[in-house]
């Protein structure tokens, strides 16, 4: 619950704890009153922790003092489902959608559920993080491995996907039930990262999946759930965790260490989209411009997401010095290629295969 300690004073809606079950239909809602007399209210529906968004929202309100912000946090799949339904029925569903599962936002845009937004700020966005001026990537978040220093000896620390596979092969008993990762069935971003892993290196991915299966990986809905297991020492290594959450956790617990895989590191850019029904698209555009602006990016690097496109890696993160230039960092291009991930047959087959391997494999041994 410690993660929510800063949240109390501003929360209006229900506050869900870290351990609360994923897939909660109703999101966590927070209201940020305007600093001056309210002249506009921006409704944001996000699949991004309020904790990460709060500094950005507060800083934005410094520039727009008469704007109140109503923020609701969803799980990615729920956000997509609700947005999709609202689009089909031409209903209102917030003024701005934020989601780490950009493939879902691309699908929404492809289905004609997005409004284009063009401004000086959007012109500075690199092509890979902008599709049709409708979906914008506003963060830079490597997918990382996190380990607990007390339980993983230095010689065990994996630096590539292959090393993680080998580690689980060589020390299966020690790590059984000690590897945490996403539950693809519940997490859109988990599915996306796994899908892209399978595409980046299908053989490595197959072997890794097999190892994870044998190691009885601990499956959680969300980043923070995995991180809290790490925090408490139940899980030794977390796989495919978004760097921003991992870094935030590591700041609170210095036993947690972050490794950027050196064979390849997927880099996610959290997406923002203005839905077709937006009532205050002007405010949504302003907030989006803020997120993309230098001030917003700077604030995100310092307080919210800790990694940035141009800047160096944060201190104490183990990874290649030049992430993108070295070719190791592979930004996920926001574009129609992500539609393949969103194909329903593909998705169900992929998750089915994964479930068969990871979940339905008979348990031979329970850890502890």
């Amino acid at each position, binding site marked *: 619950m410690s993660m929510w300690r800063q949240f109390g004073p501003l929360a209006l809606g229900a506050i869900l704890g870290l351990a609360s079950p994923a897939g909660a239909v109703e999101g966590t809602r927070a209201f940020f009153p305007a600093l001056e007399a309210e002249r506009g209210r921006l409704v944001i529906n996000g699949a991004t922790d309020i904790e990460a968004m709060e500094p950005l929202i507060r800083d934005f309100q410094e520039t727009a003092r008469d704007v109140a912000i109503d923020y609701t946090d969803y799980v990615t799949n729920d956000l997509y489902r609700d947005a999709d339904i609202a689009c089909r029925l031409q209903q209102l569903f917030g003024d701005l959608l934020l989601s780490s599962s950009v493939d879902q936002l691309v699908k929404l*845009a492809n289905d*004609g559920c997005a409004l284009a937004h063009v401004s000086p700020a959007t012109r500075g966005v690199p092509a890979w993080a902008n*599709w049709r001026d409708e979906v914008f990537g506003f963060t830079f978040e490597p997918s990382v491995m996190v380990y607990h220093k007390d339980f993983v000896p230095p010689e065990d620390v994996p630096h590539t996907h292959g090393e993680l596979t080998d580690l689980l092969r060589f020390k299966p008993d020690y790590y059984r039930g000690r590897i945490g990762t996403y539950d693809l069935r519940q997490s859109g971003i988990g599915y996306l990262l796994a899908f892209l892993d399978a595409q980046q290196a299908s053989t490595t991915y197959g072997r890794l999946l097999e190892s994870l299966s044998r190691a009885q990986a601990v499956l959680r809905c969300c980043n923070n759930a995995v991180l809290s297991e790490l925090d408490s020492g139940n899980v030794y290594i977390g796989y495919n965790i978004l760097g921003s959450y991992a870094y935030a956790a590591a700041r609170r617990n210095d036993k947690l260490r972050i490794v950027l895989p050196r064979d390849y590191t997927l880099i996610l850019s959290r997406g923002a989209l203005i839905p077709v029904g937006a009532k205050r698209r002007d405010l949504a555009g302003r907030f989006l411009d803020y997120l993309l602006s230098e001030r917003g990016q700077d604030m995100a690097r310092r307080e919210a997401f800790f990694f940035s496109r141009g800047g160096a890696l944060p201190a104490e993160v183990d990874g290649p010095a030049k992430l993108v230039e070295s070719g190791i960092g592979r930004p996920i291009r926001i574009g*129609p290629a992500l539609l393949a991930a969103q194909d329903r*047959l593909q998705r169900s*087959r992929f998750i089915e295969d994964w479930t068969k391997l990871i979940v339905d494999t008979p348990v031979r041994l329970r850890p502890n």
Partner: protein
Amino acid sequence: MKRRETSLFWRLVLRVALVLCGGAALLSAAAWYYARAAADDAYDRLLLGAAIQITANMTVDAGNLGVTLPSSAFELLGLAERDRIFYRVVGPDGRTLTGYDDLDTGVDVTAARTGPVFLTTEYRNVPVRVAVVSRALSDPSFSGWAYVVMAQTTEARRALAGELTSRAMILVGIMSLLALAGTVLAIRYSLLPVDALAAALRARDPQDLTPVDADMPRELKPFVGSINHFMGRLDERVTLLQRFIADAAHQIRTPLTALSAQVDMLEDDDLDVNRKRHLGRVRDRVSQLARLTNQLLSHAMVIHRSDSVRFKPVDLGDIARKAFRSTVPITVDPDVVVSFEDSAEPVFVRGDAVSLREAIANIIDNALQHGVEQRLAVRVRREDDRALVEVADDGPGIPPDEWSAVTARFVSTKTGEGSMGLGFAIAAEVAVAHRGTVRFLEKGEGDFTVVLDIPLYQEGT
């Protein structure tokens, strides 16, 4: 409102411009059509490639048709950066396997069995280009045709077509402007002979009715021919008229002489004052008529001689003296001082002595009739290569604005009284025949002077 002047130049330019505009519009339309076809062709390949990739990824597993959608297929379509993608995979039973269930193109998918089908239609209110590709499945447990319907919005196609078209239109525009500029130059150049012809006609002497002989393009020949034909007829008319006048004058002279004699014989002693005055007027008029008839004859003679007599060197001083003597009557008013001043040496000109004497006589006569009050001076002199005969008198002279008129026929500054002045007309006629002029010097400090100005005779010319 001013009536608009029609211009050959503007007519041609306007019509050529119209044709060019029409042509440019036609070419632009063609360019747009081809650009669209080219853009469609280019992007259709992507669409087809993506659809084929998907069909290639169809698998039959335990009697179930499955398909993996390769990301590369979408990446291929993603080359059209801003376009949205819709697809639908249809199994042999007609059910939608995956994709957009409502992507119904209205086309019979079975038509795709022989080859890919392309069509342009609308889906979700946006124009899309659709490709339908088939694949025959021949698994023992499962056979039939499966189809992939791949649709893509047309933003990139339209953008490419628009770009190609606008480039082509720029070229067409430049070509049209060049063509128009070329046409303007060509028309200007072609119309130059017309201007030249006009200039030649304008520069002509009014008396000159000989055929126009200028270097003209073939197209202007009929025009020049008509002008020449007209001038020939005019020339004939003028000749006829002159002959008629000469004949008439000659015919009139005989009865006039008789009339003159008869009038002279009339005794006026027994007439009262009133009748005497009338008789005096009749005498005046008869003598005027006689003079005019003489002038007409003289004019006819001068014209005749200018056409028929060969010029030879003659002494202008000699001729002037003879003219002076024959013209100034012995009975001249004693108050008038007349003088003749010859050049120190002979002044030779190439010409006809008879015509020249007639001309000088007429000028002197004119001065006596209309000008002289107390002084008449005739001088012959040479100035550079010109021979000049000057007739000066102290009369009122002729105002400068009438100078050009008096050398024309039947014009006099004194209309109604005295004679109709044919004198200067005769003099001018002779001067022109001798490549000279009749000039006037305004009455200023000196007397009003009429100058007959003829080039000097030069050995060898």
